[in-house]
């Protein structure tokens, strides 16, 4: 393949990888908080895409207004999600019960989206367009790069970096980690567990929703966007369960593999990605960077 094609595909793959990474990061934060996988993660992305695109298309908010308003929406969604799924089930004796409850949430999110915004896919124009309304293109060294992909990478990377900093460097972040690792002890010490866990959920919703917003112009806003979570699962497995850095790298790998295998194997790109998971699970289940903390799953 020629160099131009390669670059386009690579850009595409990395952009998707960044979105998967945002989903994956959220997954891991929730595993630490709740101990189980969130099977509604992709649907949070989907719902976020609908909310943000609706604010732009239906309410015609300019970007600088849309951002704070959608943030408020994400806070609400995060709180509702936490209080309906996590809170009642935090002492669940049957761990599968929480997983299945998230499956229920997945269905609710899908149906809610269809009820509110209809069953037809909606198209959202890219953030940067040229004079004719077509997707804006950035030229580097003569190679065309779609602006939407570039922006996705930039926005995603910044968000991931900021949240990583929050958890690793700030005092508040450590309180949140503590509340997630042992809420009983954290409570005894005076950490307001409900507040910190709510904050975690809100962050996860933001991550997923921003990802949804960034890829909406590419994929169109539709209620099947939720299936993207399976790629995020793959990223988590490849990177090593529970390890955020690993999940990010794993997700990038998944994004690239997916995009490049579309060239050769069109309908079977799922096969490559998932064979990759199975391969990893069998040969190196701890992933590329897996550590011991992971095993809460």
């Amino acid at each position, binding site marked *: 393949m020629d160099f131009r094609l390669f670059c386009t595909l690579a850009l595409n793959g990395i952009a998707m990888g960044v979105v998967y990474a945002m989903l994956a990061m959220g997954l891991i934060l929730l595993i630490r908080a709740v101990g*189980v*996988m969130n*099977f509604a993660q992709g649907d949070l992305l989907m719902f976020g895409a609908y909310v943000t695109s609706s604010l732009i298309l239906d309410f015609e908010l300019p970007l600088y207004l849309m951002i704070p308003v959608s943030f408020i929406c994400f806070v609400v969604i995060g709180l509702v999600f936490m209080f*309906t*799924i996590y809170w*009642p*089930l935090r002492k*669940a*004796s*049957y761990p*599968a*019960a*929480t*997983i*299945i*409850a998230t*499956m*229920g*949430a*997945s*269905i*609710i*999110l*899908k*149906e*809610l989206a269809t*009820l509110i915004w209809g069953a037809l896919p909606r198209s959202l124009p890219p953030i940067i367009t040229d004079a004719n309304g077509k997707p804006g293109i950035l030229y580097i060294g003569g190679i065309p790069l779609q602006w939407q992909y570039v922006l996705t990478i930039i926005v995603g990377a910044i968000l991931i970096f900021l949240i990583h900093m929050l958890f690793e460097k700030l005092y508040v972040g450590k309180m949140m980690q503590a509340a997630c690792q042992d809420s009983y002890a954290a409570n005894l010490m005076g950490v307001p567990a409900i507040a910190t866990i709510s904050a975690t959920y809100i962050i996860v919703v933001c991550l997923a929703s921003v990802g949804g917003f960034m890829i909406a112009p590419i994929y169109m806003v539709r209620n099947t966007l939720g*299936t993207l979570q*399976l790629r995020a*699962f*793959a990223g988590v*497995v490849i990177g090593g*369960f529970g390890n955020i850095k690993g999940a990010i790298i794993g997700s990038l790998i998944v994004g690239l593999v997916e995009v490049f295998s579309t060239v050769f194997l069109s*309908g*079977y*790109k*799922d*096969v490559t*990605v*998932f*064979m990759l*998971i*199975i391969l990893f*699970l*069998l040969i190196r*289940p701890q992933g590329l960077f897996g550590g011991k903390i992971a095993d809460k*799953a």
Partner: protein
Amino acid sequence: MKRKFSPEAIVLVSLLVLFIIITPRVLSGYSMNVVNIALMFAIVAYGISVMLGMGGQLTFAAVSFMGGGAYFMANMCTDRLGINMPTLPALLLTPVVFAGIAFVIGLLLLKLSGTYFTFSTIALVQVTYAFYNNYKPLFGGADGISGIPTLNLFGYKFTSYNTWFYVLIFLVIIVAVIVELIRDSQLGRSLAAIRDNETAALTMGINVYMTKVIAFTIAGALAAFGGALWCMHGRFVGSDMFNYLNAAQFIIMAMLGGVNNTVGIFVGALLVKVLPEILRSLQSYMQLIWGFFIILLMVFMPTGLAGLYEQIKANIKHKLQKKREGAGQ
């Protein structure tokens, strides 16, 4: 043994008999179709209950094997590959073939435990779905395979849904009995030990790995069997049925009635298929309510309807006992 003759059992059996007698008389056509599908799904759900209810292992693989069974029948019994097997032997062959396939896949996937294993089953579903949806020669691609002959039992063709009902209910009862027998067998007890505490089970000398593999094999064979029946009943097989979302539906079906309760699975399967039909008027809100229902179910009744029933029974017993004690004073 006492179970078989308790008042409960008698009530259940009577209800079952009533169900068998009344249903074909009141229903036909579309509604019968729905009930039949529920019965076939129940067979698949029984397979899931062996893995999840008895063994505590969450698996999505059921739809992969269901598809396998369905496409196997489709290819064996039509002219596509030049094989024109009569339906009965093909039907009986299906669980055998897929037990073998499930065994091999199980050997591979069950090297993983817990959520890693669950993931691998999701990956399996995605892979099989991709093939079912794309590989035309064997699976007919997105269009599927049609014109599958219906079940032919020594010359008697099951052409109406009502006649199918009798076959299916008979098969469901047999599968249910088999599952109950497994539950009380050494295999069932080993699975229960694994479910409750895998490490402890290991130390007790249980071969955890092989036990899980056997459970996986049984689940796979049952799922394939259900799939084979399904394709003969509907005379058609298409890839839509075998995706990740339906896999989730099956699991919910199993959990609804009580994943570890034989009667519960039967009731759960019926409810999941029949309820949406009854509530058709609420169609657009149907799925939404369904989603809420699942969450409520997990919060309040993770042991399913059967668990609720047991709780109510225990409550009543407790109250009766207190009354007796009070009176004795």
